[in-house]
């Protein structure tokens, strides 16, 4: 449905107006966190600049609603301004006599009741239609299915079809012409209520414990999309960030393949691996083919394939990882990983080991 021509033809004036000032600050910031991917980062998540099927549907509805509301504002605001200017008191002679006392008019009252009713009917109909379109059955049957589980303060990402478990970075295939690709996200929570929102891909959905919500996306532009947890869930609600990596089918399959492999057992970092297990890191974290099988923290089997640390709080490079291992509470105060009080030597060894988990 979202053909290229339609996207190009769309007026982006509003989107540009909103973002132009913000763009000035962009290049300094996130360019360092690009990671291994060669994809553009969509860090400005303007809801009026959609990049996915459902977000585009929402965009067109938003434009209609915005247009109607702007129209109402101009008419009513204009009338208010007119009345205020035209009927202002013009000097003391106006105090001598009161203006004509008008108590009401049934005809006028009826007019301004009926017109809003008509507008409301229009809005209600398009609302119902869009709800049906986005909450109804999925457009194609053969889709990718992901389980996303919100934890305080990170996202667990599971690909049940491929037995892949990862965290915070969600890889999905690009929807392209020969092969449609729709990804369905099933949202669950391990603890409190969270909210999952990547504006350019779809609207948000809450992530509620004991409850299963779904969202689907149909992205038509490759890139990395940033999103946030939207519901206060504790101290680090702000740093519960989402990265969705939209890539073409080949890259996606290659990524899946890599994720399915067991981690490389590099003999040079054997010490670090032992330290990792000995310091009970494995109580919370899992690394395939080791004794570490915890489920409370992110799976680290392919840790180095991810671009960020601590659900997006810092780039996943050596310096930040060292700081994180020394005391996660400095980078992300209030996160649930405690300071393990490791000695510098232990930190170095564990660091060297983790850096091999490509």
């Amino acid at each position, binding site marked *: 449905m979202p053909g290229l021509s339609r996207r190009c033809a769309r007026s982006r004036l509003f989107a540009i107006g909103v973002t132009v000032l913000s763009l000035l600050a962009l290049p300094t910031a*996130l360019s360092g966190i690009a990671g291994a991917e060669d994809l553009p980062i969509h860090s400005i998540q*303007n809801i009026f600049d959609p990049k996915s099927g459902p977000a585009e549907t929402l965009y067109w509805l938003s434009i209609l609603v915005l247009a109607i509301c702007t129209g109402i504002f101009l008419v009513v605001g204009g009338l208010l301004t007119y009345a205020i200017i035209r009927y202002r008191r013009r000097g003391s002679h106006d105090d001598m006599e009161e203006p004509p006392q008008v108590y009401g008019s049934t005809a006028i009252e009826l007019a301004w*009741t009926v017109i809003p009713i008509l507008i409301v009917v229009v809005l*209600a109909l398009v609302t119902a239609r869009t709800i049906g379109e986005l*909450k109804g059955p999925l457009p194609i049957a053969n889709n990718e299915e992901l389980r996303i589980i919100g934890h305080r303060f990170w996202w667990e990402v599971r690909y049940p079809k491929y037995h892949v478990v990862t965290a915070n970075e969600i890889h999905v295939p690009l929807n392209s012409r020969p092969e449609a690709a729709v990804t369905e996200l099933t949202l669950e929570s391990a603890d409190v209520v969270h909210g999952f929102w990547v504006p350019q891909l779809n609207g948000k959905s809450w992530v509620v414990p004991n409850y299963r919500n779904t969202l689907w996306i149909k992205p038509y532009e490759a890139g990395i999309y940033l999103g946030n947890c*939207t519901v*206060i869930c504790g101290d680090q609600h702000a740093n519960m960030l989402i990265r969705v990596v939209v890539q073409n089918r080949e890259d996606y399959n290659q990524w899946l393949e890599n994720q399915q492999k067991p981690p490389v057992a590099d003999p040079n970092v054997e010490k670090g691996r032992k330290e990792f297990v000995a310091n009970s890191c494995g109580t919370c974290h899992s690394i395939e083919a080791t004794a570490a099988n915890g489920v409370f923290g992110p799976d680290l089997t392919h840790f180095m394939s991810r671009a960020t640390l601590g659900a997006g709080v810092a780039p996943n490079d050596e310096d930040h990882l060292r700081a994180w291992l020394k005391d996660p509470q400095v980078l992300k105060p209030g996160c649930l990983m405690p300071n393990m009080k490791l000695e510098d030597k232990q930190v170095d060894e564990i660091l060297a080991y983790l850096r091999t988990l490509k």
Partner: protein
Amino acid sequence: MANSTRTIDIGTAQAPARPGEERGTLTGWLQDLVFTVDHKKLGLMYIGTGWLFFVLAGSMATFIRLQLAVPSNHVVTPQEFNGLITMHGTVMIFFVAMPFAFGFANYIVPLQIGARDMAFPRLNAFSFWVTFLGGCLLFMSYFCAPGLYDAGGPPQVGWFALAPLNSSAFSRGPSVDYWSLSLLVTGIGSITGGVNVMVTIFCYRCKGMTLYRMPLFVWMIVVTMFLVIMFIPPLTAAQIMLMLERLLGATFFDTQAGGSAILWQHFFWIFGHPEVYILVLPAFGIVSEVVPVFSRKPIFGYPAMVAASVVIGFISAGVWAHHMFTVGMSPFSTTFFAFSTLLIAIPTGIKIFNWLATMYGGKIRFEVPMLFCIGFLFQFLIAGLTGVMLGVAPFDWQLNDSYFVIAHFHYVIVGAIIFAVFAGTYYWYPKAFGRMLSKKLGLWHFWLFTIGFHLTFDPQHISGILGMPRRIYTYQPGRGWEIWNLISTIGVIFQGAAAVIFVFNMFWSYWKGKQAGEDPWDAWTLEWVTSSPPPEYNFEKLPEVLSRRPLWDLKHPDDPDWKYE
């Protein structure tokens, strides 16, 4: 204030003054403050309480804005930030806006309906003190239970304290208990207050004041109090459930024991949405008094205004789940609540048009109360339209939980309600204290506050559109939010300056203001027929009315209103 009445009070003239009751001593004043059952004093105490907490919660907002002024800022810790937003929201709703609603109702309603006091004066004092106690209880969380790790300090759950974050597993220590108890206690004060005002209005109107001749302010208060009595109890019930859960191990909302997180949201919002109308209807009432007087015309379409308010009251009972469009409701429920929400736009539109038509053809006097009402009209129009956008459920899937929502409800609560409270304060201050508020300072206050308001809240619409979620204590650079947050923080300076001027004006005018006389605005309702400030018994002889504008009839015997009604 009380002393001006003593000369007329024959009964106590010969009795010796009791200790502390002498003229003007501090102890006398304090004693009077504590023991008074006079609706006017209690009304002023409600409003004073509102301003006190307004200053506190406003300073909290300043810290929130400072923290967010630039990305990756370190003014406060994440824990402190979550405490600030929870306290700011809770205090502003329950201990600023609610006391304003009750304060104006208390002071104005008996005067406007020609009564000597409220129906139950001592219950009235009880309501006030219980509300005040609730506020203190909330702030006690700052001081109590230190020593436990993570347990001292204010609640950190957001003002609607979603389950299961509010459970003892995720919010350790007694902070949330204080929050819950505070709302429980305040709720009792609100319900008794609501009953009291309702009974007063239905049983104590003066001769000739039929329901159809009541001033619109009184009508709005009727609907408000109806909503208070109907919809505070669900909140109270929810707080009792939460206390049972936190202290005695019940599992209503505990998802790990089969409870439901959604249940809490239904309980909270079935209170929470009518609450918005509890707060905004008194504001409508104030505007419906001020706009006609300063346009020199009667309100346009009185019956339609009354009908619209009653309809808003009824519909507001069936829209609560529009706060939950993103929770994962079925398409049918989502559609239902989107429809009912959009429906509210119709009576609300009628109101705006009627205010507009009241000004149309008048001779508008730009006194300070009127300026605040004009600000109200524009801002409420925008708030209503962004409300329509949020009511369109699929649009809400994008906008909910974002700064767009923050901007929307601050447009309602500051841009409409607080502006109306300012208008009401400038309008009725002369009645309450016998002196006019300085117009010069009032103009400074109006313009600075309006500029500050728009600087702070207009950019938040845009950061919301750019995906900024609410309640984050920090954000990384490069998301396009920097400039909007910076402007927003700059706006706080203007609002703060305006608030200082306003408070100064209140005190300065109390001693130095121009004498007001009985009827400084040449108005038409009964409160302006008695002295300023009114005696304890309000009217020497209870008035009798023939129309909605008794003082108009008095001033224009050749062309009275009752001929046309």
